[in-house]
């Protein structure tokens, strides 16, 4: 594998890691608001 190919793979891995992190962050925020909404509904 050439260094150019290696660089393409690393770039793609970095992008995927970034998107996964963003989605996980969004999921945590969503869970927080779901919990608040559910708690209020049970008051």
């Amino acid at each position: 594998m050439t260094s150019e190919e290696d660089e393409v793979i690393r770039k793609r891995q970095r992008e995927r890691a970034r998107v996964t992190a963003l989605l996980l962050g969004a999921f945590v925020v969503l869970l927080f608001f779901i919990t608040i909404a559910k708690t209020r509904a049970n008051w």
Partner: protein
Amino acid sequence: MPTLELTRPAALPADWRDFLALTKPRVMYLVVFTGLCGMLAAPTLPPLVLGFTAILCIALGAGACGALNQWYEVDVDAKMRRTAKRPLPDGRMDRQSALHFGVALGVFSVLLMGLASNWLAAALLAASILFYVFIYTVWLKPRTAQNIVIGGAAGAFPPLIGWAAATGSVATLPLLLFAIIFLWTPPHFWALSLFVRSDYANAGIPMLPVVAGVESTRRQILIYTLPMAVAAIAPWPLGLTGAVYGVCATVLSFVFLVLAARVAANRTSDPAQMHPEKHLFAFSVFYLFALFAVLVADRFIA
């Protein structure tokens, strides 16, 4: 941006955009919209964040269906011009990644729906995913020309799920909304399959124009449009909607019927000359959007 050609494409991890493409986002709009309208037409509305989550779950469930459909049909997609550039047939992703992604997305969407909304909505979502994957994709689509007729039920679930997420129950109106999409699917897909029938024939998919011929398909389109129009107008005389919906549904269904009659009267077999079929296909998408939008408008006006 120019892309680098690799000597071993299989070693390249799939791009995140390819995972997104696997979910068929362009098809998802209608699913999300009808699900949202089903929810908004309900007598009680859930808190905003829970409603948003329910719609998100419907979208994720539809994405799971798209991914699993593409995983299963990779050989068929490779033979069709319309689908040959999808991530799997184009070699941009390995099949196992698509399978894992589809299953994970489906399970996640059902669990999140159950936890955020209620388990009836989650069960309906699970049923729609399983129906689409096993009944439609695996069983019906490669075997029978009636694949779209029965398989259309999978796409008809969203308003039912949206309503169930809002109310925790199922009533007559969402069942009628289910019936509308169920009966709308054959004319919609058959209009498309008439002018791309060579693609389906090459791929060995027994769509109606391939199996029964063009003329028979045109007649079937007109025949199926009649019960669809009845189902679309029915909520009005049944007292489930107001006159705004009733009048708009009648006008829209009449236009649909006229376009279907033009298709039935068309005699050309050259796809390039199938203008009535293309008009009907385009209008059928608008029809469903408009019908459901008017349903929600009627609910808030009344």
